[in-house]
């Protein structure tokens, strides 16, 4: 039987739009305490001691926190790093974040960390490995996690499972929730000539625990072709807002997060993006708002 984990041990994340906490904004957030529904941090930035951890202690007094991991490498065939899990558990126990998430991708092989969220081939073997690692992570932390769909620039010849099906199967088998990154779905669908709306239709609403939004850019690979890159370096694109609206109609109200990691703008610009996302949440018809609880 699948173990039942508590969803959250600390302050719950509201069904509202928050932002990713970035270094340049910390001081302003601490000093001015602007209205922000919730904050998400990259877990690995708090594995040490000193000022980063102390500032986060102060921040958590006023804001619900979510821990988003970027380096555990759930897709590693070597299994998960015990040191990494221990460090993560230490801060999860200390800060009691409302959500803990990671990616369906890989970064490590044979003890080498490549520091990128690399795509997996979608095969039965990879599915087994990812599920085994998620089980391990949830058992180690003693709680449910969420996993995010990657943005991909390439596909493997030997993939046999559509990504959406792969994600659903992962959540169904392990009892984790999905962190649906709508921008990633858009980027991958464009890059591989797939239907992003179709992807979203395949996801059972009850599995979705969070949505991510971010900006992307287009790079020319050669004179004839270009690729969309998920660089989190600009405003959310109009097409992605459209896909987001469609997603919300399926899922109902869920926590939404706007990420911005390169060319980080001033806090007001980022908060304006969160306000836009919030407007979409607020404009949901009453029935869609309730959908989540009915599911």
């Amino acid at each position, binding site marked *: 039987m699948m173990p039942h984990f508590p969803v959250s041990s600390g302050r719950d994340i509201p069904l509202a739009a928050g932002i990713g906490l970035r270094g340049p904004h910390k001081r302003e957030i601490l000093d001015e305490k602007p209205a922000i529904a919730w904050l998400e941090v990259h877990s690995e930035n708090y594995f040490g*001691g000193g*000022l980063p951890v102390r500032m986060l202690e102060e921040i958590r007094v006023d804001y619900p926190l979510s821990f988003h991991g970027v380096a555990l490498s759930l897709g590693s065939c070597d299994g998960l790093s015990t040191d990494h899990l221990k460090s993560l558990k230490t801060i999860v126990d200390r800060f009691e974040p409302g959500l803990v998430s990671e990616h369906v991708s890989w*970064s490590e092989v044979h003890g080498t960390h*490549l520091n*990128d969220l*690399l795509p997996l081939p979608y095969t039965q073997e990879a599915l087994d490995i990812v599920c085994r690692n998620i089980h391990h992570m949830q058992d180690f932390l003693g709680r449910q996690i969420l996993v995010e769909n990657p943005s991909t620039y390439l596909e493997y010849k030997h993939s046999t499972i559509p990504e959406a099906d792969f994600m659903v199967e992962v959540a169904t088998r392990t009892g984790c929730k999905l962190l649906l990154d709508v921008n990633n779905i858009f980027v991958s669908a464009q890059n591989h000539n797939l239907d992003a709306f179709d992807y979203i239709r395949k996801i059972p609403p009850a599995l979705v625990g969070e949505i991510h939004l971010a900006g992307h850019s287009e790079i020319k690979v050669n004179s004839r*072709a270009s690729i969309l890159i998920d660089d989190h370096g600009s405003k959310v694109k109009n097409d992605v807002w459209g896909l987001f609206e469609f997603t919300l109609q399926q899922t109902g109200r869920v926590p939404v997060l706007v990420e911005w990691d390169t060319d980080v703008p001033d806090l007001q610009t980022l908060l304006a993006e969160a306000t836009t996302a919030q407007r979409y949440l607020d404009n949901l018809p009453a029935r869609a708002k309730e959908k989540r609880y009915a599911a």
Partner: protein
Amino acid sequence: MLRNTQKDFKDAVLNKDFSSAANDIKPKRDIDPIDLIQIHLNNSMKSLTKVLRSAFPVTEQIVGEQFFTAAAYKFIQENPPQSGCLTYFGGDFPAFLAEFEPAKSLKYLPDVARLEWAWQHAYHAVDEKAIDLKDLIKVDSARQGNIHLKFNNSITLIYSPYAIDTIWERHKQGFVDEESEEIDVEDHAAYMMVARPRWEVIVRTLDVTSYVFLEKLKKGGSLIEATDAALQIEPRFNLQKNLATFFADGLFTHYYLKEE
């Protein structure tokens, strides 16, 4: 098998050996699979270089951006991180620079890099509580010379035959260009301590006796052994004053007496 796919990818990213990895990629119209793998290669190299850049800003100022990037790429290829916690990535960079042929003429560079790494290490070190000088009074005065002290984990002691303290300080204040007053790198040797016993990182140039005293203690010597080592260099070494300073800094986390 997934293991092979991942190993092939690693060879592509770190060694630019694309042949096997490219074979795994589904063909795309108008795009060479190698160009797609190259996107990930760039992500890896650029993000890891950024990690090094933020840990070694003065080193980069000294050699310039282009030189630094080239050194970083070679370092990453030869010493890729072994953990996803990148605050610990870069500790081997100073030793790499010492062997990096194009940097050989800058003899002081590896020591400047060591100083920067010490800062980085101290900044992220695990927090520990300091003991008070008063705690030592509990020890019977006849046995006080036998006291050993455990150092806060953030502390690094650095000796360099070059004036790395001046170099570091001047670069930290802003970019040093042709119009700046020239730094005589051989002006003096530097005996330095980097620590973060509380919230701020302390970077301090010590006199040689204090350095020798601390170094002996840190290597597990007793108070009496450390004092003797300092006295050999400077007969007027002031134990009380040194202890008062270092305890006030909060450098020590435990004391213990070894069996006599």
